[in-house]
């Protein structure tokens, strides 16, 4: 029987393969391009591995084609590339990278009925819009903000806190969640300052915070700002604790902050790479092809796998036919078990806290 199947496969011409298009959207240029490329590589690795092992959906031999788009981390560009992907007839989308881009794009995918799984958008509003096609494989900011506040007040014993955010959907979202939860834990907020996701000069706001001398500074934003911010903080002689969220927790942060990075804290959704069920094997496969993992490539890998598994279960690549299978999916991914709640959020999302020690991020117990 197997021999017959193999023989029939062999007879099939390579050109007659069925193609399923998966869109991968992230900022591939600009300050966050290293993170965006990381996500894109996760999708590509998944597609290559699936193609190499042979994919059959609904009895038809199928090949995955990845369509990568650059949204420049810009909400307006995000809607343009989302529409472009819809017009090109993608079967599913992994992305976008940022919350600020995933949210406006989700309406376009929802209107077209195309499932979208973000590997990294953590803002609570992303899945709170009531779209059936919107999913994420990463812990959201409400859960993360709560864990960060518990850590700041409970573990680090911070009584007074200053917050800086970059006024993006992500930065402001996580900062607001943190502020709310930290106040609930009993800490006093002494300042809430603002910057932008293109800023490099933080001396003015840091000086103003310095005058209020808080126990801890929390930054809601990305590593390209967090790194220089930490450096400028130490140059100003500010010795208080620095806490960031997942956007700050990258090797890039340490590179940019240099020696000043030592002792910084940050959280990240999910488990540390070496504690992920499939982490070790993933690191080997990924680094062999693309080099160092930045942040979310294991998640974009899992998001791609979830889309393809749902297609396999439904026996169809038609978005309307495999969407029900996707919302009920249960699979073991690299990052842990993948299944979604009624909103499209990942179930049992974990949060881990890290500290920079001797020039690298170490997971705190």
């Amino acid at each position, binding site marked *: 029987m197997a021999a017959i199947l193999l023989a029939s496969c062999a007879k099939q011409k390579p050109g007659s393969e069925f193609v399923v298009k998966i869109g991968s959207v992230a900022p591939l240029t600009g*300050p966050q391009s290293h993170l965006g490329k990381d996500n894109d590589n996760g999708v590509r690795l998944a597609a290559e591995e699936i193609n190499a092992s042979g994919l059959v959906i609904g009895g038809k031999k199928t090949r995955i084609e990845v369509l990568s788009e650059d949204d420049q981390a810009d909400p307006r560009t995000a809607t343009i590339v989302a529409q472009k992907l819809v017009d090109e007839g993608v079967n599913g989308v992994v992305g976008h990278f940022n919350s600020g881009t995933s949210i406006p794009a989700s309406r376009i995918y929802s209107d077209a009925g195309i499932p979208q799984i973000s590997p990294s958008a953590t803002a609570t509003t992303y899945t709170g819009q009531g779209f059936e096609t919107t999913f994420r494989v990463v812990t959201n900011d409400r859960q993360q903000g709560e864990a960060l506040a518990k850590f700041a007040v409970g573990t680090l014993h911070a009584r007074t806190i200053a917050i800086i955010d970059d006024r993006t959907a992500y930065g402001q979202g996580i900062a607001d969640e943190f502020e709310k939860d930290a106040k609930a834990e009993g800490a006093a907020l002494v300042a809430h300052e603002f910057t932008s996701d293109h800023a490099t*000069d933080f001396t003015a706001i840091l000086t*103003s915070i310095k005058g209020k001398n808080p126990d801890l500074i929390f930054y809601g934003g990305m590593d*390209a700002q967090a790194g220089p911010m930490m450096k400028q903080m130490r140059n*100003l002689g500010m010795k208080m604790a620095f806490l960031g969220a997942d956007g700050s927790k990258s090797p*890039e942060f340490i*590179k*940019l902050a240099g020696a000043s990075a030592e002792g910084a804290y940050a959280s990240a959704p999910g488990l540390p790479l070496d504690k992920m069920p499939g982490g070790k094997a993933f690191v080997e496969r990924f680094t062999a092809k693309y080099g160092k993992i930045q942040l979310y490539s294991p998640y974009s890998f899992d998001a791609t796998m979830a889309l393809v598994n749902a297609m396999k279960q439904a026996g169809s690549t038609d978005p309307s036919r495999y969407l029900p299978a996707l919302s009920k999916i249960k699979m073991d991914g690299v990052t842990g078990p993948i299944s979604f709640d009624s909103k499209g959020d990942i179930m049992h999302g974990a949060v881990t806290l890290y500290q920079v020690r001797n020039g690298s991020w170490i997971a705190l117990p």
Partner: protein
Amino acid sequence: MDTFLQQLINGIVLGSIYSLVALGYTLVYGIMGLINFAHGDIVMVGAMVTLTVTRLLANSGLPGPLILGIGVLTAIPACMAVGYLVERIAYRPLRNAPRLAPLITAIGVSILLQNLAMMLWGREYLSFPQILPAQTMAVGGASISTIQLVIVASSCIMMAGLSWLIRKTRLGNAMRATAQNPEVATLMGVNVNTIISITFVLGSALAATAGMMVSAYYGIAHYDMGFILGLKAFTAAVLGGIGNIEGAMLGGLLLGVIESMGAGYLGTLTGGIMGSNYQDVFAFFVLILVLVFRPSGLLGERVGERP
């Protein structure tokens, strides 16, 4: 009081960088009435070249200030060359074209330089090696770091040098003559093309120094850093009176201090209604206010439109 002093120092440091860049805008505008929008990107080239050289030498065992010196001495000729080429290729053929044409070309050159830098140095933020000691001096409760001193001192020296060059030398005479009336200057034996080239080269040298300062101070450089910086410096030049050398210096310093103070005190002054998110709004508000009462800037003179 400590905080106030510290914000003032921050502002002066930021302002002296703005001043250097603003001088580049003002020099070119004064001589040929062109707003060179690619000037900010020449600052970026200066930052990138300094960064590359510094990275190469970071582990050579040479003392930090020397490495930074070598870096900026490499960046200055590199930027001078870029400035010269930009003028020669993009602006000179349009010397007698309608005013809008060179303006559009300037924006084109800016995009071109950014994309070339992206290809050469990549898209990520590049970190500047910590080569200067991070030690700070305490002055009346505020702290001043070595790099801040270097920035203010070298920018003062460069500005003084430029003033001397414009006021006291034959070259300066020729530049002022060209600014007043290119045709008459030609009749007096001034080679206007050479003077314009020299102006661009001078502005680019200042830009290279500013690029070194920005990247060493903030510890970071990337390919599109020139855009916002250029815009701020242009604002500073307009604030002081575009075309006026002292105006650019004053405008730069003023804008730096206003921004610093705005970010530091806006929240307290307005009772939390406007926070540091209005930092830039505040700076532009001051600009508009100045332009309402002095349309040609703080030190600018009212001049008739050029024929």
